[in-house]
């Protein structure tokens, strides 16, 4: 094994390109006919990018061993801060009623759930890397499950469903990368599937029969484990309607609107409809940079944060969308390659977990602008206006740079 180049320049270039593209879109988002404070936010975003790149360089100086060591205290601090949010939290943007922002004396310090994404990945990787074998039963997964579940639940209670979904996605991705077999992952996910399908009794019944079949003929668990899985599914099936009743009205609205945006075209469905109109009216080449009428005339909501990708679609058209999505794809593939070539299990898991975090963000955010997934108020990495997330994304790049430089120079079986 030999050392690769000190810096992974393609990764840096990808990060800078995406951030530059993003800042241009934040600038455009401010160009409305009736000017608002958004018009000047691109300046803040440039400042944040500068800070973030410095932070990335600093992060790239940290050795992987230090990261592994610091994972535990960082995780404990993260949980503590998330608990603090119930006292000092406040909402913003499309999720004004949540407490995602750490607010002290009226000043919004940042969104701790963003940094939590990194610390949870580090912690998961640390716990899993200490094992020699991939777990063969669900019971053996109790440790990583607990590590992911605690922050997920805390964030869900803020409530910030979008970020919570990122943690769930990250958790499964890390387990997959660690080599947990598919059937085990499926069994692990089964209570969640039950929870979703329980809104239709018939679908849930079908799923339940299929699950029993899978358990008996395919997965063949220990008796207790099997009973546990079945009970968990039954429990979720029962609790789902109760959960629905306890949901915040806006959460319930968002789910209903996802199923049919025209059910409430004036209020909740409005965002999604206007976003689709903005993107759809863009055509091949778009209406021109800063020229999107949906955005200019304020038909597009949260145009600089959650719905910034609709501005890309409206102003730069399908071509602009394809370029942005391609940049993301290359970033993901590059990160997966770094994970595959990492020197040790911990680094590999960290790299893959970070890639998964980005991937879920992009899928959720871009998907919601076209109503492919429900609106969950989640930012688009490198594009959406906001300091914490920019910082987090670049710290992730810093960590990846380090992992990349410590990894195997020779491409494995991956040809990217």
């Amino acid at each position, binding site marked *: 094994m030999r050392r690769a180049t000190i810096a992974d320049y393609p990764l840096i270039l990808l990060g800078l390109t995406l951030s530059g593209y993003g800042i241009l879109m934040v600038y455009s988002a401010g160009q409305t006919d009736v000017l608002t404070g958004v018009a000047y936010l691109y300046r803040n975003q440039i400042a944040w990018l500068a800070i973030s790149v410095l932070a990335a360089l600093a992060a790239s100086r940290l050795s992987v061993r230090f990261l592994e060591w610091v994972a535990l205290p960082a995780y404990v601090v993260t949980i503590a801060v998330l608990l603090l949010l119930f006292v000092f939290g406040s909402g913003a943007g499309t999720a004004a009623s949540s407490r995602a922002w750490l607010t002290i004396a009226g000043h919004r310090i940042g969104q701790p759930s963003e940094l939590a994404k990194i610390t949870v990945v580090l912690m998961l990787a640390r716990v899993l890397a200490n094992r020699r074998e991939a777990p063969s039963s669900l019971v053996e997964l109790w440790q990583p499950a607990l590590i992911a579940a605690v922050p997920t639940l805390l964030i869900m209670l803020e409530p910030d469903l979008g970020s919570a979904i990122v943690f769930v996605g990250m958790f499964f991705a890390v387990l997959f990368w*660690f080599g947990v077999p598919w059937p085990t992952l499926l069994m692990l996910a089964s209570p969640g599937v039950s929870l979703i399908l329980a809104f239709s009794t018939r679908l849930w019944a079908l799923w339940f029969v299929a699950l029993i079949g899978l358990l008996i003929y395919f997965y063949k668990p220990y008796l207790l484990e099997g009973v546990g899985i079945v009970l968990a599914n039954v429990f979720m099936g029962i609790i789902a309607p109760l959960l629905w009743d306890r949901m915040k009205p806006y959460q319930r609205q968002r789910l209903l609107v996802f199923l049919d945006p025209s059910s409430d075209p004036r209020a909740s469905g409005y965002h999604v409809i206007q976003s689709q109109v903005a993107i*759809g009216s863009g055509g091949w080449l778009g209406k021109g940079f800063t020229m999107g009428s*949906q955005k200019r005339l304020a*038909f597009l909501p949260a145009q600089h944060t959650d719905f910034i990708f609709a501005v890309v679609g409206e102003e730069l058209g399908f071509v602009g969308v394809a370029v942005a*999505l391609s940049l993301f794809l290359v970033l993901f593939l590059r990160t*997966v390659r770094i994970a595959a070539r990492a020197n040790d299990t911990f680094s590999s898991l960290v790299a893959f977990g970070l890639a998964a975090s980005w991937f879920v963000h992009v899928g959720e955010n871009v998907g919601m602008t076209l109503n492919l997934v429900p609106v969950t108020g989640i930012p688009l990495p490198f594009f959406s206006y906001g300091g914490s997330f920019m910082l987090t994304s670049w710290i992730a790049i810093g960590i990846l740079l380090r992992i990349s430089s410590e990894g195997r120079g020779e491409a494995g079986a*991956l040809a990217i």
Partner: protein
Amino acid sequence: MSFHPNEVARRGRVASAALFGGFVILLGAFFRTQVLQNAQYVLQSESNRLREVPLPAPRGVIYDRAGRVIAENLPGYSVSMLSPRADSLIAVLHRLRETIPLTNEEIDAAVRRYRRSPNRPTAVLADASFDVISVLEEHRVQFPGLIIQAAPKRYYPDGAAVAPFVGYTGEVTEGELGSRGYGSSRGYRSGQQIGKAGIEREYEDRLRGREGTRFVEVDARGRVVREAGAREDILPEAGPPLTTNIDMDLQRFVAHLFGDSLQGGAVALEPSSGAVLALYSAPSFDPNRFIGGIPADYWRDLNADPRRPLYNKVIQGRYPPGSTWKLATATWALENGVATLDDVMPTPCTGGFQYGNRLFHCWEKKGHGSLTLSQAIEKSCDVYFYQLGLKIGIARLVAGGVALNFRERTGIDLPGESAPIFPYSIDYYNREFGAGHWNSSVALNLAIGQGENSQTIMSMARFYEALATDGREARPTIVPRADTTRTRIFTLTDAQLGGLRSALAGVVAVGGTAAASQIQGVTLAGKTGSAQNAEDPTRTHAWFVGFAPADHPAIVVAVLLEFGGHGGRAAQVASKIVAHYLKVVPTSHLQTEG
């Protein structure tokens, strides 16, 4: 070992494939939305962004036969409002009320208009004064959805003198928008001005022109961001001018003759073509006060007035034709050979006629003695016509009236014409009174224009038009028509027609019933009539229908004065109309009642 490099590489391939799959799915979704469904979303985005502000088209100018203006357009202003929601419209209108006067009714009406077409600017004031506009311009920034629009405003220079035929315009009502004639399929939208009466309504399709559109760019809150240039305006097309048969000089004169004191109606026709030279119903109303919304008190007064100014007495009023009808009886008798102009009836007039157990009076209590048909027309002798009626017989009298089109509307190009009332056959009497419960004495009444017979002024003018020509009538028209076919309603020889005309001329000669209405140098031919009036039997309606000059008629006139007494008074009005038209002087008027 799950972290064997080969295992990792395999999972790397799976992950890369999954990423690529997600990328393809997302890109496919964007392709579908942006490229395949592009047109649909462009449309939605445009309708989000643009509001269509209607540019009202000036209505066609209405001219008389000499090119004098009857109806034109003056510059005016309308005030309308763009709002995203009904409640915000209400809020803005209440704020607007602090700046300009607005009644609750106007606010309610605006909200109703908004609900009907929320994407159109809601008309608030159809005709705003210049003062209101200047105040609004000053406060414009406070009302971001406000649109002030130049809107041509209808104006009738002669006002009340032309109202009976020209009608007026007004805002299209909710009810009209729901109907087929003014539905949205024909391009009508709330807030538009349409013809409501008279030729304004009859020729609405020709006069309205085509509304234009200005595209105003608005933001999500309905604020006007760009007033012009968002998309090229579609300019309104003015309605084409409409030339009528009306002779404004004569029309003004007729209106002037009626003045404030006389009540009734008059129509003057050109006999060869049926062209309406003048049509007036008194009292009239001022159509200019109807523009931009009728003031409530004016509307109340018009409706409360017992003289019924909104009721067109020429085409809607129905009156017993009285002695003017005697020409119908005579025409029918001549045409069917029942009598000649020189025939004398068996019983001379002694002031009354005994039929069965009832004495039927002649208007002349002294009696007329023995008369020929010509003389009976001149003197309007009832006794002669009683006997002529009996000779014709009730069945043929009714059939004759039907054949002379006295059951039909004249078909004049004005809305709301009433059909005359006349029996369709003797079955009418059987149905009305029961078979066997009536006798041929109804023929006596029918022959002199009383009984089950009510005609419009227009209907009588139409019949005299046939007398003035050759037994054919032309449909009366205010606006010239391409189709000038004339319908034959009776066939008389030239001698018979000449005889009838000279008898009619005798009416307006010394010894006739309208001797006081002679005109210097012109022979006026016509027939007086006094119609019994159901409301007040002591005050009859006065009729005169005639034409001039008798030998070569150039004008047919029908005049009815409500409660006017003897037909001679109507004859005086008619003679002045004829004299004015023919530019000659009526002789001095001697009040010789007779």
